[in-house]
Every structure is written in C-alpha cells, then in structure tokens.
C-alpha cells in the first residue's frame, strides 16, 4: 500500500514537472465568404496557444505550390498570451481567391525553445 502511494506520488510529480506545450488552429477546412468590401472575400480562423515558449504566431496564405498570396488581417504576426484563443479574419482579393490553398500559422519561438510548430488549414 505504501509503495503504491509512493508510485502514485512519483507519477504526479513527474506529470506536473513535464511541460506540455500545444498549438492548435481551426477550422481544418475554412470557407471564404463575401466581405463588407466589394471584390474582397473573408474567412475566420482560430488559434489556441498553450505554449509558454511562444507569444507570437505568424499567419501566411499560400498557393498549392506554397507561393505566398497577398492578404490582409488585423495582424500578420498575432500576439498571444499563454492559454489565449484568438479569432482572426483573413481578407483576400477575389482575383487571387481561386489560388488560395493553405492558410498557415507558424509559432515564433522565444530564445531557448526547441520545437517550432506550424499548422495549415486547407481551402477546398
């Protein structure tokens, strides 16, 4: 019994001392709709930051061949606190809308971080 308690306490200590940092972006398949401006379409995505070692995420819009596409958002690099969820709009000209394939968020690491995360949603 005493040994079981010791093992349990050890597991709790190990679990608490192991940092778990996550990056999440939704939806997987965003869809564009008409915006309040003529000739411009908009879609909305969400990022959840559970990374203490990241305070900024950079947004990018790309073609199928990973060429960058011009877009407008409130921030290109979104400032985010730990455990923040941020909803952001991405505006793209209707002229380049058919070329949009991926919308990605990339973690901007603080000094000492060792894993960079990138999540891309796909516009179908």
């Amino acid at each position, binding site marked *: 019994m005493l040994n079981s308690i010791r093992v349990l306490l050890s597991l709790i200590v190990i679990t608490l001392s192991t940092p778990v940092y996550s990056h999440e972006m939704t939806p*997987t*398949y965003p869809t564009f709709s008409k915006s309040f401006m003529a000739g411009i379409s908009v879609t909305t995505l969400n990022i959840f930051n559970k990374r203490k070692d990241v305070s900024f995420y950079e947004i990018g819009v790309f073609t199928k061949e990973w060429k960058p596409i011009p877009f407008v958002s409130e921030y290109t690099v979104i400032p985010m606190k730990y455990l923040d969820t941020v909803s952001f709009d991405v505006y793209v000209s209707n002229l380049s809308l058919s070329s949009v394939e991926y919308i990605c968020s990339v973690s901007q690491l603080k000094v000492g971080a060792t894993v960079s*995360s*990138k999540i891309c949603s796909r516009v179908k």
Partner: protein
Amino acid sequence: MKKLLIVSLLLAPHIPAFAEETPISGLVQTRCLITTDTNGVFGNPLPSKLSTASADGGVVPIVRYDVTLADAYVAKVTTPTAFSSSPSLTDSVAWTGTTAVSKTSDAGMSGYEAAKVTYGYTTQFDLTIAGSTWFSSTATAVYGGTKSFPGGSYTAIVVAECIAK
C-alpha cells in the same frame, strides 16, 4: 390537520418549479493539435559530437500530434540543419537526423512507421486514423570532422508541421 394536508397537496402542483434544465453545449471541430511532449537535450559523447540519442547521453525530443478527423492531415517533422543559437563556430557542422513513430493511441496506426516518406531532413507521415501519435526525432551534429565543439550553450530547432489534406 388532515384539512391542512389536503390543501397542501392540492396546492402543490401550482407551486412553480425553480429547478430548470441547463444545457451545456459544445462544438467539436476537426482539428490538429501539435504538442511538445518532451524537449530535446544534446548529449556530448565526443568532443566533436552533439547528439539527442539516449545512448549518447541526450534526450530525444518528442512531439505529439492529435487529430480528430481521420485522413485529414499530413504530419511533417524536420530535424535541425543548423544551430539556432551557439558559440561562434569557425568550421562546418555535419547534421544527420531521423524521425520515427514512438507511440500511438490506436493499434491501427502501427503502419505509420512503414509508410513514412523521408526527403532531406523531413519525414512525412499520413495521419489516416483519428487519435494521437508521438514522433521522436534524433539529431546529431558533428563539428569539422573531429574538431572539438567550443564550450557554451547550443540550441537547435525541430520543425513540426500539420498540413490539412
């Protein structure tokens, strides 16, 4: 007393109920979650070598991918090809790296390792089953053939990508 009881029973159905059903709503979306499970640490088994392999005294970085929709994402893990921070180096560094599936939440994911595609320093896995997969990356850096790494702190970055299909 009996009259009082009867009156109470008759009135009972008219007493308004204050308990109400409170709904809890939620939306489960398809998503990919990248989690740093274990940060890597370089071991220094030889003066000219830094390695995350446990046999070399290092700690292998482990990244977990959680996907909630089967066959919706591709995971790409790229091992480092340069130090993100280090003392000044005057010679070239030769990098090698491998990424492998270290743990899965579903027995059906056992085929991920055999089906992985490697190009350059990047290893690609097709996440065909919903659930969690742990990937471990081993990175080795050898300095100028047999030169000793200068003393100091070294950091390199593993890039974990989750791309919707």
